[in-house]
């Protein structure tokens, strides 16, 4: 079980609060949109939750990814343009 941050890129409008609250894991690109740097370690979980709650666009999510979902994600990842 891993704790991961996910951004809904459509909802995100680049406020940048998340990078202020969680600079350990989130940096902003040159246009102010967040880039996430990997899974959330346990000691940052509380900070991550705070960043999620602070997002004005409700675009940041904290998700647990259990292993049995791996196959589904592999299928989804390999589909793009209605192959």
């Amino acid at each position, binding site marked *: 079980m891993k704790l991961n941050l996910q*951004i*809904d*890129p*459509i*909802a*995100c*409008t*680049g406020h940048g609060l998340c990078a202020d609250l969680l600079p350990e894991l989130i940096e902003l*690109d*040159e*246009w*102010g*949109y967040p*880039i996430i740097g990997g899974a959330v370690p346990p000691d940052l979980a509380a900070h991550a939750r705070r960043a999620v709650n602070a997002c004005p666009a409700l675009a940041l999510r904290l998700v647990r990814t259990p292993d049995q979902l791996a196959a*589904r994600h592999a*299928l*989804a990842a*390999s*589909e*793009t*343009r*209605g*192959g």
Partner: protein
Amino acid sequence: MSHAHARDEYRRDQYRGDQYRGDQDRGDKDRGDQDPDDRDPDDRRRRTGAGVTPRLTMDWQRADRAATLREHSARFGPLRANAARRGNRDLLDQIAAAGLTGRGGASFPTAKKMRAVAAGRGPAVVVANGMESEPASEKDQALLARAPHLVLDGISVAATAVGAAEAHLCLSRTRGWLVDSVLAAIAEREQAGADRIGVAVHELPHHYVSSEETALVHWLNGGEAKPTSTPPRPFERGVGKRPTLVDNVETLAHVALIARYGAAWFREAGTGGGAGTMLTTVAGAVSRPGVYEVEAGTSVGDVLELAGLRERSEAVLIGGYFGTWHDLEVIADLPFTAAGLRPAGGSPGAGVLFALPAGTCGLAEAARIMRYLASQGAQQCGPCIFGLPAIADDLAQLAAGRPEGDPLSRMQRRFGVISGRGACRHPDGAVRMAASAIRTFGADAHAHARRRPCLAAHRGRQQTALLPVPRPFAEGDWR
């Protein structure tokens, strides 16, 4: 590679061969005099000869219109009456054994996707993707225009295989002639009582990203034809929240033949690790541009030869505008399949091959494509809204030999941060194309960056505009 700076023997009007009607003619934005998309492509000639394996394209060269249901049945035999009764398991096994992969761009195993849909809860939905928004591709339009009943058979078989009670066919709103032709074919089938379920034809707004599968689903659900955030993917929850199979029309046409003749027959064609046949659209420095059906796994060089490759081409764009540029020498012997091209970092995509004519500037072509792709986003995700135009600017400065600062290192940095951060793969595809241009035309890129552009780039846009860039579809019309 270094492109020749010699005088260019290539003439643009040779590219607009008579096989290229439809979108190709629309490529020249400056010639806004007519809408060729609304013309019937009567004079698209199809060829046979060494290397061509006519299955889907059987008898195309003898017809200048869509095959009627009667002609279709005579050509391929009836869709086995018991195919429906044999049940979905047998059909899925046959499609899996055939090794059919998606022909829309992703090359995903078709049976695997169908099984995921069939395993979903409740009745499923089938969506046939005939949007063909890739400007360099003609194959889906050609297939629907000549052999609509193969696609419609495929929809019917796929619906049986996944347990669907509802089927849709999505076409571009800019191609009225194609919609009329397909509707006539559907009317024939209704009269003959050929199908268990009807097929609803839809005309969607024509944007590059509108053919993405989540965009089709979103539109069919009453929204705009823009990609949506995933998960859920359509196979989990799609049209009407039901498990939804979205397949390219060529993929479905192959399904129709596998249902008739079986997996072993399908695999009788195919070489170099490929299975069956595939439709390709070949253009550029070839004497006979057009749509060719070849055995899957045919080498890139052999496909180009089929279309009459001119000797003096050194680079090729494979896959389409989401594709990649390569040195022809490096890639000529590789099979034109996902597995075959993977070592070179390429993919067959929608089956497009464009040979860059000698004496033309690959960077200029890449810059034009990039500008087009940047304009074709759904304007939903920051990295795409801001990142793609920024890269398009960098590439344009480079192509023109008028760099501001260091566009090469700016681009390398931007390539690294933009991919994978959109809701759909639009930014990823655009970045892949731009990055491959910098790799393939590396020597030129460095010369251009030192303000020494090639002669081709100097001669201006008209001379170097070879790949079609469609006129933008009515701005803001996504519904």
